[in-house]
């Protein structure tokens, strides 16, 4: 365990050099003072429902500070995995452990340290917001001044002051999600598991929720599941794509983007018709595609090559009338579709 801490510190140290000083200090403080260093270890986790395999042999570990985005099509097993991580579902086989605690034997201890927002934010509708949060805090073992202070903290954090005495059933979806978040945060958990936290929210509310997640995640583990691909690049620092119960991709959102054919591709638009035949011949350009509707020209690089400079040189040399020049990050939709469908068709062939 000691060696692990040291490793984390040096890792933090390496980050330090890349960051402005004030940020660097914050990172260092958090890395050394984090009292738990909770680590989730999942081994060969499987879950079957009536002969149907929802989660199939998942193995991964998650370290503090990681904001993991679970991506996957509907019914891929994201929610089932999360339910097993929270101890609500018992795995058919395999194990979930946090630090040295095993979910199968010490679920209560683990659950103390987890905050969970179930899919669709189910809440006790007949209670008022304050009653509900108070109830959760009490069951979580908070009392007296600590409880008061924690309640005030989460209520401020998700801005529920105006609806405290309203019944939950009267409130809109946005409020319900925020109450669900408040409920998950009230005991200041090390691990936060949010099943589709932004589902059904308007863009402003989505933004708020993302800001909230980003703000609290420095020393915690946050796991969110989502359908929204931009959310992963906006909030997460690790992406796991699950399809048909299997882990199909595990890496940073940037790595996911790199898988896209569009990664580092250059898209151009011309003010008027120009000779573009030379563009396809530029060193490193793999292919040129012209969109007939918009007139956009997209140049795809050969894998691993950067073509931006060469393209710029070409444009200035031939004085091409470019009025729009975009370097693409990568189109996640394509990658997502590729990752989640490609192997399933392979599976069908082998079956």
């Amino acid at each position, binding site marked *: 365990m000691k060696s692990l801490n040291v490793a984390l510190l040096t890792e933090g140290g390496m980050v330090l050099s890349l960051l402005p000083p004030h940020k660097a200090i914050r990172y260092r403080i958090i890395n050394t003072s984090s009292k738990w260093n909770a680590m989730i270890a999942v081994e060969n986790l499987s879950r079957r*429902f009536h002969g149907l395999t929802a989660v199939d042999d998942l193995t991964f570990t998650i370290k503090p500070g990681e904001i993991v985005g679970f991506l996957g099509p509907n019914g891929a097993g994201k929610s089932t995995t999360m*339910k097993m991580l*929270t*101890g*609500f*579902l*018992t795995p058919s086989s395999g194990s979930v452990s946090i630090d040295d605690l095993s979910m199968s034997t010490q679920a*209560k*201890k683990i*659950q*103390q340290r*987890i905050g*969970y927002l*179930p*899919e*669709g934010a*189910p*809440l*006790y*509708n*007949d*209670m008022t917001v304050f*009653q509900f949060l108070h*109830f*959760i805090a*009490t*069951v*979580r*073992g908070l009392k007296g001044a600590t409880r008061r202070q924690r309640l005030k903290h989460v209520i401020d954090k998700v801005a529920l002051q105006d609806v405290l005495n309203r*019944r939950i059933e009267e409130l809109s979806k946005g409020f319900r999600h925020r109450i669900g978040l408040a*409920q998950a945060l009230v005991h200041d958990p090390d691990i936060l598991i949010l099943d589709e936290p932004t589902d059904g929210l308007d863009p402003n509310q989505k933004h708020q929720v993302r800001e909230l997640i980003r703000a609290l995640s420095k020393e915690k583990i946050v796991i969110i599941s989502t359908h929204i691909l931009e959310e992963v690049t906006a909030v997460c620092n690790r992406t796991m794509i699950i399809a048909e119960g299997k882990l199909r991709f595990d890496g940073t959102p940037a790595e996911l983007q790199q898988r896209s054919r569009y990664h580092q591709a250059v898209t151009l638009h011309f003010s008027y018709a120009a000779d573009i035949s030379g563009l396809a011949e530029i060193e490193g350009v793999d292919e040129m595609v012209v969109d007939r509707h918009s007139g956009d020209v997209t140049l795809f690089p050969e894998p691993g090559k950067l073509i931006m400079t060469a393209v710029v040189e070409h444009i200035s040399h031939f004085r091409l009338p470019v009025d729009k020049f975009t370097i693409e990050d990568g189109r996640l939709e394509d990658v997502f579709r590729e990752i989640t469908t490609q192997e399933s068709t392979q599976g069908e062939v082998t079956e």
Partner: protein
Amino acid sequence: MRRCFAIARREFGSFFATPVAYVYLSIFLVLSSVLTFFVGDFYHRGQADLLPYFSFHPWLYLLLVPAFAMRTWAEERKAGTIELLMSLPVSVGEAVVGKFLACWLILALALMMTTPLWLTVNYLGNPDNGVIVAAYIGSWLMGGAFLAISICVSALTRNQVVAFIVAVIMCAVFVVSGFEMVLDIFRSWASNTIIDTVASLSFLTHFDTMSRGVLAADDIVYFLLVITVWLYACSIIVDENRAA
């Protein structure tokens, strides 16, 4: 234990946040008085006791308690809040007992609200108040048994109507097993031991002595045992539900 009380308090509060508790309390009061005065011939008997009042309790409970307890787990499952509850650091046992306590408290409340009847008897004559207290306790214990069965059945389904009907039938089994008609069916072929066993399973048999003021240990133990067994079964069912 504190968690158990927190759950009980929440449950108790939610009965009053919705009309359920008010409806139950008023129907219980109205029906128990109607039965006592009109069917039970409270005045014509010319006796200062509450026997006509208590003798209808098994039948009142048979209808009202399942109606009142059907939502305890069924609604929790339907609304998905069971996921919230079970991911809190609460054991299944604590949750089951908490819910039971809340409901049992409301039964106690309903019984307490019938004290005017008790006062009436005292005004009219000289009843044996010890008998009445014993009968109240007996009725509350029996109500707890009905409740434990209904709560257990409620955990089996997410549909409250199904929970209600099944609970009524299950409770009815425990009530009618003390009936002469039912026992006659057994008399033709079974030995006395079996008949006695069947009869001793009945709430009626045990409540009968209690409503006459005899708080015998075996009756109390019987009801407590029924409550424990059904609540234990309930916790197993709730636990199984999340595995399935």
